[in-house]
């Protein structure tokens, strides 16, 4: 059964416009020119309980707008949305009890006071029973290693520490769905991995459905079984990452290290990217060239020390997809 259903969601914004210059600014004092920007057009998809869905797309594609509509923050101009039986913007107050939200570029913690004070305020706002609060706080403290920073004022935390606290804050009230809008933005490698592991764990162990937007394809690779891609306000792709790989990722690279001086080999359909006496890098289409055959032919050039076959990074796949749809 689907937990989230969006049908034909559309949203446009009115944007005031004026050209540069003093005369234009004076003119804008009397006559405002507006353009209507269509942020979302006919967006429809469903999400099942327990899924992790990665929502990707270039800047300004409409990712955050979709998330905000699903959180009940924005009211769409067209379409219907049903999440756990609620219409987010109509049943907002009753609905938001069931969701947790992290907007990576904003903070929900009170800046001047220690983290634990913010958590206690959230406990009161959501009227979380003391037992459950205690249990969740202990679990989150342990999983996100917050013990040392709970008593520090938020303004003195590093970005990585703050993001861990933000995520903990969004889960104190046992939400069924977690919306993460760029949760790893600006984090270092260690914090990113900690955040990813945590998201995976709460999804697996507590069955929390996760919708996340990100620009970091490693997030998607590590987490999302399914990706939704949006560009210029329309949904362009809905499917798994491996499907995307098999569709666009047949191009592979092969790096060959030779033991002693070797001579370059020409194989039809294989392109040589670089060649030195010790190492050669080729690229080929794995649909058309058989890998065993290729290695056999390359070994004719000299004794092989090491062979490495690589897929192109997900980033490049996505870029290809963006290009194909001209977004």
């Amino acid at each position: 059964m689907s937990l989230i259903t969006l049908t034909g969601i559309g949203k446009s914004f009115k944007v005031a416009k004026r050209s540069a210059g003093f005369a234009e600014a004076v003119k804008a004092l009397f006559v405002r020119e507006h353009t209507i920007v269509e942020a979302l057009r006919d967006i429809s998809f469903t999400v099942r309980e327990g899924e992790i869905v990665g929502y990707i797309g270039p800047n300004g594609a409409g990712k955050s707008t979709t998330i905000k509509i699903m959180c009940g923050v924005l009211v769409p101009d067209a379409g219907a949305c049903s999440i756990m039986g609620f219409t987010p913007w109509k049943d907002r107050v009753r609905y938001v009890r069931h969701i947790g939200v992290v907007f990576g570029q904003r903070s929900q913690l009170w800046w001047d006071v220690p983290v634990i004070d913010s958590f206690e305020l959230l406990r009161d706002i959501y009227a979380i029973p003391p037992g459950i609060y205690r249990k969740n706080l202990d679990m989150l403290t342990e999983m996100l290693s917050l013990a040392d920073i709970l008593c520090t004022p938020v303004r003195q935390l590093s970005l990585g520490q703050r993001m861990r606290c933000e995520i903990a804050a969004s889960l104190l009230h046992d939400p069924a769905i977690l919306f993460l809008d760029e949760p790893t933005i600006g984090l270092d490698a260690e914090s990113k991995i900690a955040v990813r592991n945590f998201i995976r764990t709460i999804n697996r162990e507590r069955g929390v459905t996760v919708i996340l937007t990100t620009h970091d394809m490693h997030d998607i690779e590590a987490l999302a079984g399914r990706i939704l891609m949006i560009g210029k306000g329309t949904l362009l792709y809905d499917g798994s990452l491996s499907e995307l790989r098999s569709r666009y990722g047949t191009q592979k690279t092969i790096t060959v290290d030779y033991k002693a001086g070797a001579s370059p080999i020409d194989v039809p359909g294989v392109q040589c990217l670089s060649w030195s006496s010790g190492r050669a890098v080729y690229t080929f289409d794995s649909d058309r060239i058989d890998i065993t055959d290729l290695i056999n032919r390359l070994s004719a050039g000299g004794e092989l020390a090491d062979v490495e076959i690589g897929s192109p990074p997900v980033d490049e796949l996505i870029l290809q997809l963006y290009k194909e749809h001209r977004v």
Partner: protein
Amino acid sequence: MNAPLSLLKMRFLTGLQYRAAAAAGILTQLFFGLIFIMVYVAFYTHNGAAQPMSLKEVVAYVWLQQMFFALIVLWQFDVELFELITGGNIAYELCRPWRLYPIWYAKLLAARLSSASLRCLPVALVVFILPEPYRMPLPTSPAAFLLFTLALLSGLLLVAAISMLVYISVFWTMSPVGSVLMIAVAGEFFAGMIVPVPLMPGWMQTIAGLLPFRWTVDFPFRVYTGHIGVREALAGIGIQMIWLAALAAAGEWLMGRALRRVVVQGG
């Protein structure tokens, strides 16, 4: 603890974090109180004609202004709320299981109560022991004091309802500067913050009577001094309630409209 109470607690904690600001506030209040009273003393000494308020009443009026400044001054706005709207953090506000008008209203009350509580007592301790004519007089009767407390508290509710309209206007204007300046100048004057309403010319008193502002400052303070009698005070508290109901209803309705067209600034 429920959400509004715990917001109040959070406010106090934040306020306590900035002790120097509170101390500076106390000194400012005392300084301005003394200056105002000096001006009135000069005015009353050199102007023989009978005035609608006695000097003693004016002194009480000035000190009440300074003591409860944070409670009733209209232009003390909560920057945090403006930033919620113009900076886009309204997104988080709307993800909480609460209705926005009541909770923002509670936030405004919390901000005023916490900042007043840090200043009121220290100022009171000083002004009750100052030498004459600067000393703060005691209330004329226990009844007057009780009614004053009621009138001051409903004045607080009223001023918060008025300022809610300013916050809501920012959903349309996206900058608090204009609405704050307009309401600050007009409201402060007609509330009697600059000159007590009875000292204004007649036509100006008529305008002040038509607006809600004088019920937040002029009315409670004159109840304290006994300038407004018991029966009149009871009727006045009724009028405060009517204004409060009207302004809160208007605010709630406008807030509903604003949220339907809300735009989260900054993506």
